[in-house]
């Protein structure tokens, strides 16, 4: 394979990988700004019949969620001091409650792939660059 021929491409891809790496870190930190420790909850009819002193039923355990519209939060405190998110409101408005875990997972995948890709492209570019030098200069 003629590496020299793709020298510019390797360099461009290395730059692109760097942009992706930085972009994923910046985008995730922007998305995670204002994230909340909260728990999805719903009002259950006749909750008092269960002997509980609150009318909400928790839908799953508390998680870190990305910030949601203020109307999505309910009064009261969930397990482990979590804020309560009105699951019925999310459903009505077609809002999916993304978790911090999801953003971090995607960020890590993009960051690792772009870092590895960037290193590979840089090393290929460096090799192509060496090959493209006149032999006398290399000596």
């Amino acid at each position, binding site marked *: 394979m003629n590496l020299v021929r793709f020298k510019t491409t390797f360099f461009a891809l290395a730059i692109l990988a760097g942009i992706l790496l930085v972009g994923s870190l910046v985008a995730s930190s922007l998305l995670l700004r204002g994230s909340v420790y909260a728990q*999805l909850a*719903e009002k*259950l*009819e*006749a909750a*008092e*019949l*269960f*002997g*509980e002193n609150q009318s909400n*039923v928790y*839908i*799953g*355990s508390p*998680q870190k969620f990305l910030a949601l519209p203020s109307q999505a939060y309910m009064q009261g405190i969930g397990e482990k001091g979590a804020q309560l998110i009105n699951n019925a409101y999310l*459903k009505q408005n077609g809002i*999916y409650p*993304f*978790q911090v*875990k*999801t953003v971090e*997972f995607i960020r890590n995948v993009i960051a690792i792939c772009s870092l590895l890709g960037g290193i590979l492209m840089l090393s290929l570019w460096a090799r192509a660059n060496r090959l493209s030098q006149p032999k006398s200069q290399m000596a």
Partner: protein
Amino acid sequence: MKKQVLLAFGALALTTLMSARGATEVWKVVERDNLNIAIAESETDVENFTARTSKIKGTFNFDREAKTGTGTITVDGASLDTGVERRNLDMKTAAWLNFEKEPEIKFQATRVQWMRNNDYRITGTFTMNGVTKAMITVATLKVTNANAATASARIAGDSLALNAKFPIKLSDYKITNPSIAAGRVSDTLDITIKAIATNK
């Protein structure tokens, strides 16, 4: 005379026994949305997601005085909703929970022992994916005599509220998937069942 006294005691003992047995009432789950809920929570690398349904059926034979009983709760697994249609479809396939073929999730209580307040130790079986395993869990059972709260919930008669939360291991129920083996999806599924039954 002695024979008559013995007969009287015998009759009294029999009546007491019969009345004690008669205290066991049949409680049927009120099949109505927003009254009952079953939730399954799964932890994955990407997110912790919950699936929920209100499609719960069941009957209890519960003696509120003796605080003992038996019962069966059935959840329609095929109706579990995760909030993502694609995931709902995947969940039902044989690669995951196999609800297409085995939609029934059944919790059968063969022994109910009172512990304290409204807490009971429930011994029984749990069935999922056609596999039945013995299980013991702690649940709350609360009897409420017909009152304003039951009336506002449109429940005829007294109510018996069940609240159970327990984990199950998917591999115990022959639910295996490469993602579980690789540790990307937890082998543990946390299940919560809240149901209201009535004696009328």
